[in-house]
């Protein structure tokens, strides 16, 4: 349907550059946060949780009061057991989920669950 007369044969280099730039931009936007989170994940995990095997109960500290969105996201890593202020309590978090949890950039700190009181 597109009727064009033969365009002057510009080389396709500029088109390629645009394509690479666009793809890089989209990849950055989609993968960027995850990569950034993983890169800074060391600081998030409390020392005692660094080498853990089997599942643990943890309390996840956020820099802001968690909303429904955050509770939903966090509960995919363990059993959601309520929240207090900026902290969310998660039970039976398996070891590999713990590492993924540490890779979320909007999570401030992950500490072992302190018994209440």
């Amino acid at each position: 349907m597109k009727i064009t007369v033969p365009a002057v044969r510009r080389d396709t280099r500029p088109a390629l550059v645009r394509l690479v730039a666009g793809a890089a931009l989209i990849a950055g936007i989609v993968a960027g946060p995850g990569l950034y989170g993983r890169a800074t994940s060391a600081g998030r995990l409390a020392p005692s949780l660094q080498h853990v095997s089997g599942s643990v109960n943890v309390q996840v500290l956020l820099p802001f009061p968690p909303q429904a969105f955050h509770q939903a996201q966090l509960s995919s890593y363990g059993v959601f057991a309520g929240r207090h202020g900026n902290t969310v309590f998660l039970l039976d978090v398996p070891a590999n989920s713990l590492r993924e949890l540490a890779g979320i950039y909007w999570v401030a700190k992950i500490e072992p669950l302190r018994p209440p009181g």
Partner: protein
Amino acid sequence: MRARTEAGAGRAPAAPWLRPRGSAARSPRVPRRLVPLLFAVPFLVIIVAWVLAKSVFGVSDAALPSVGDVIRASGQLINWGILPYDVSASLYRIALGTALAIVIGVPLGLLLGTSRYSVIMFGPFLRFFRAVSGIAILPLLIVWFGFTETTIQVAILYTALIPIIFNTMTGVRMIPRGYADAIETMGGGRARLMRDVYLPGALASIVVGIRLGVGYGWRALIAAEMLVGVGGLGSMIFGALQFRALGQIVAGMILIGLLYLIVDRLILAPVEDATVRRWGVQRG
């Protein structure tokens, strides 16, 4: 500027009195280094008008957020991890929907395009379903699939599929008769014809169809997300409406626009330029 918009408005009609497509519209005498500045001026004008509207004309926050509100809202949404989540959700959906539409639409279009009668037979049929926008069938999809991801996916797939089938079909029709005859006389079978004549010949038109598909699909996606509300930029800005977070709405709108421009101008347009140039151009 070829108004290569998602509406295919750039599909300028061929007319003897138009300049050949290749040559840019009469470009003004502007030195090269001033060009980027040139593009920034209108955006600056808009921002200045926006600030004036708020400060001088005192437009209330209930009607128009300030530039500061929008920036703060964006920062907040990023810190909360909401924006990246919704952006990825929307981009994932449009990518999946378009990929499915290509996998289904191109072969179907090629098949339909090969015979003259099928174009006459299915032309109006496809036009009928093009008039039924993906958004119009949303209520039906909700009845069938409820407020789920499937509803959104089907809406995008349906919206993107129609232009891809249509353009593939017409792309094949535009291929001069001689090409196929030549291959046949050399003993080429149907598969050979498909691979060496129809697909390459129609490629430029298929790519235009894909761009149209993404254009229509993106709109249907935003509308579907608003309605179904299962994550994504559409549901984010519609959700923000409930509690009048105007900064969030405007931030979302700007992002929706920028993301589409990145996909359309930086990914699809170069592909189209490359295919049109490499595969040469069909004569009308």
